[in-house]
């Protein structure tokens, strides 16, 4: 049993999805698709799954197909999990009803063997205790795990997973991988998985790198790393050669007289960008127009509690945010990170505890109103008005903040240059790549020059280059503006850029240290991910 993809090309209406894609996979292999948003990963996955018209040949299990119709006989042995959290789930059906529905539409006889298999999947996904919960009330990570086991229910021989782990916490990600590993060993399933997490990609048998509607490289993790090792140097090198600098490393095509560093798979993207002659905008933040004297502690929460019915989302959480500090708020899906930020912002009423912002105790709505001008917020689901251009959107946000038109205009054009989205100012929101969208949601939160910034998963689903640039921006803001940032993320590598990290579990704070302290406490840990998992095991 093997999969062969020969020169596949997909069009979405008139625009190209993917061109000239070829790959092959053997029984039990896991193939990883990595690349920026819109690079063509989903298009190829849809073509192989036979849900979109395409040109070229796909052969699986001895049957070649060129269209969704010809792929029909193979559908019983294909499992597709499309991109999007909980995309294939019905909000109003319970976990158990989902499993029965998916079993029925695949015409599976629900006998003893099936029931045992179902229970095993439920246990692996940690959902066996939630069988009566409606899907709409599950956390993002649980939804993804439910989608995955629904896809696995009919024991597919070809498994196509499109970013199954985006927005999923490291713990759930490990569980997902355990499920996958077991299935491929017991069923010999070929899996194709696209991912934004490079640590995950490293575990796959073969990696395909996508860029601009093409597959630009393929090989095992170590082969790919070897190809870029020569171009990776330590951070902070000064040179005239064209190069890309990140917080981790410097990438340069021509040999430099500098120390090399061990590359991660993310290096592939930077090297590729260099090879295509792309220039990274230099991140340069100018000083704020006016400065204000700030207390040393800008935010102090004491025993903050939030209760939804019988469910305690946050219980007695203490937290302080200092001037010019980046504080990372980490935890599994549903640990109460977003709820906590929403309490700080006043989007949820506080059910218990005290909150002090910029030295003022927050009691009433008026107290908050006075501080609105000092706080910036980027939500998990930042949305723009689709009928207005980027600039018009930003002007709209500015006028909502009561900023004078001329001030707003000059700030927008300055941010556009500094945050590197000036070429997109007149674009409509649906034309934007996700990474750009991120910068410009940041710009909208900075328009009123706040002193505190709350960022809720600003980098989920954003490609490696855009993420690296985003963090450089945050760092520059911190240094130039002495801004304080509270940020949540599921990328453990990003935690290392924070000054201090707070870990939440089931609504309670379980750790609050600087990065150095974390490493001191766990001397064996190689990366922050390992430390994180120590706390949740």
């Amino acid at each position: 049993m093997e999969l062969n993809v020969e020169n596949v090309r997909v069009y979405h209406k008139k625009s190209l999805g993917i061109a000239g894609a070829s790959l092959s996979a053997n029984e039990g292999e896991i193939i990883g698709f990595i690349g920026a948003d819109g690079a063509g990963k989903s298009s190829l996955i849809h073509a192989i799954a036979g849900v979109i018209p395409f040109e070229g040949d796909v052969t699986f299990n001895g049957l070649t197909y060129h269209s969704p119709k010809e792929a029909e006989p193979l559908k019983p042995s294909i499992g597709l999990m499309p991109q999007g959290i909980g995309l294939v789930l019905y909000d109003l059906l319970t976990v158990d009803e989902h499993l029965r529905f998916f079993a029925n539409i695949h015409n599976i006889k629900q006998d003893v063997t099936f029931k045992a298999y179902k229970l095993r999947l439920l246990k692996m996904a940690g959902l066996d205790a939630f069988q009566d919960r409606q899907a709409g009330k599950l956390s993002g990570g649980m939804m993804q795990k439910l989608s995955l086991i629904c896809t696995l229910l009919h024991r597919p021989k070809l498994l196509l997973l499109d970013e199954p782990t985006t927005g999923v916490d490291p713990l759930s990600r490990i569980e997902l991988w355990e499920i996958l590993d077991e299935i491929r060993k017991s069923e010999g399933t070929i899996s194709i998985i696209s991912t934004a997490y490079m640590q995950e990609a490293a575990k796959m048998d073969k990696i395909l790198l996508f860029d601009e509607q093409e597959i630009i490289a393929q090989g095992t993790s170590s082969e790919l790393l070897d190809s870029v090792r020569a171009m990776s140097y330590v951070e902070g090198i000064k040179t005239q050669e064209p190069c890309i600098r990140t917080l981790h490393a410097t990438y340069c095509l021509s040999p430099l007289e500098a120390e090399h560093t061990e590359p991660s798979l993310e290096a592939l993207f930077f090297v590729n960008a260099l090879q295509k002659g792309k220039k990274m905008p230099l991140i340069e933040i100018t000083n704020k127009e006016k400065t204000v004297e700030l207390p040393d502690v800008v935010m102090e929460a004491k025993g903050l509690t939030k209760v939804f019915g019988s469910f305690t989302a946050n219980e007695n959480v203490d937290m302080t945010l200092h001037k010019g500090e980046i504080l990372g708020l980490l935890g599994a899906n549903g640990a109460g990170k977003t709820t906590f930020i929403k309490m700080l912002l006043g989007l949820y009423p506080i059910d218990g505890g005290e909150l002090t912002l910029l030295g003022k105790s927050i009691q009433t709505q008026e107290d908050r109103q006075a501080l609105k001008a000092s706080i910036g917020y980027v939500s998990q689901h930042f949305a723009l008005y689709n009928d207005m251009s980027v600039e018009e959107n930003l002007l709209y946000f500015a006028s909502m903040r009561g900023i004078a038109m001329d001030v707003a205009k000059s700030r927008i054009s300055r941010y556009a240059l500094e945050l590197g989205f000036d070429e997109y100012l007149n674009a409509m929101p649906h034309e934007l790549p996700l990474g750009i969208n991120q910068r410009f949601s940041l710009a909208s939160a900075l328009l009123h020059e706040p002193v505190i910034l709350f960022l809720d998963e600003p980098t989920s689903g954003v490609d490696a280059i855009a993420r690296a640039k985003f963090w450089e921006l945050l760092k520059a803001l911190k240094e130039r503006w002495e801004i304080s940032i509270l940020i949540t993320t599921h990328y453990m590598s990003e935690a290392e850029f924070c000054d201090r990290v707070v870990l939440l579990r089931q609504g309670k704070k379980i750790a609050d240290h600087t990065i150095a302290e974390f490493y001191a406490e766990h001397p064996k840990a190689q990366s922050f991910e390992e430390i994180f998992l120590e706390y949740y095991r």
Partner: protein
Amino acid sequence: MKLGVVKAYVLKELTEIIRSRLIIMVYLMPTMVLVLFGYGIRMEVTGARTLIIDNDQSHYSQLLVSKFEHSKYFDVTIEKRGEAKALDEIHKAKNDILIIIPESFEKRLLHGQTTQIGVFLDAAFPTRGSTMESYVKGVVLDAAGQMLERLAGNAPTISINQRTLFNQAMRDEDAIVPGLIGLVMLIAPAILAALLIVKEKERGTIFNFYASPVSKSEFIAAKLIPVFLLHSINIFILFLWATYLFEVPFRGSFLLYWLTSELYLVISLSIGMLISIITRTQIVAVVLTVIVTIIPGFLYSGILMPISSMVGVSRYEAHIFPVMYYNHILYDVFLVGEGLASSKTVTYIFILALYAFSMLTLGSFLLKKELR
């Protein structure tokens, strides 16, 4: 077609419809439309507020006044304040009709001279105005006939001996409510059917259909059966409202009513399905369904005007939409009761069946099991 697959889908749809409380709309909307429109549309005029200025105060003028007073169509007040004041009342929309009987009314009649009476009508709504006008004329003519008989000593005049058929009391309810059933049964099932498919497209759950072995016919059956079952109950509910609340007579065969309604329901479902194939979002699907169904459903239903009185293009258009055929059968079973004995009814049932069949075929042909 695998029955297990269809059953699983149907069960899922029903669960979702109930949990999302869409079920309330399924049963509330048809009833609401029937009750609101049933009470709201009034063609006939009763109790028109009428002022009469009797300047003659004679025997014959009293006779004329009493004719108006005894008619259910007029609500008469004798106006004594004078003409100007009375006209003012009409201007203020406090009264609808002003009738002025001149001083020499009786005298001129007895002398065999023509006499005139003055009539002022509020014709702000033309239909209502012309209806009132004809009522006034009728009463005056009736009174004139009687007067002539007396004056000429039983001279023969023409008297009308009319019998109205099918709607003896000429009640508005009898004319409107059956037509409304035809309208409601076209709109409501179409909206629900369109929603069920588009909802999956909008959410992304349509991938479960694209990527699984579920066939097109299974998917269509799974989407249409729940709506068919739920709205079948409405056929009975609407029947009960019509016969009990609006007291519309039912003279035909209930079996004919029921089976034709189910056939019509299938047509409505397939309209919804066709719309869900070309739309992507639920809101567009609902708006489009309402536009596509409500205009022909209302114009060509025979509620506002009978199809037989339409001419030219509108007559052809009426024949394109299914509502005309169904309404013909509806009016037959409610008011006439001829049933299958009429060859027109048989032909119309056949046309409805053909309609349902071709719409379903077209829908399953156009539905694609792939992203676009």
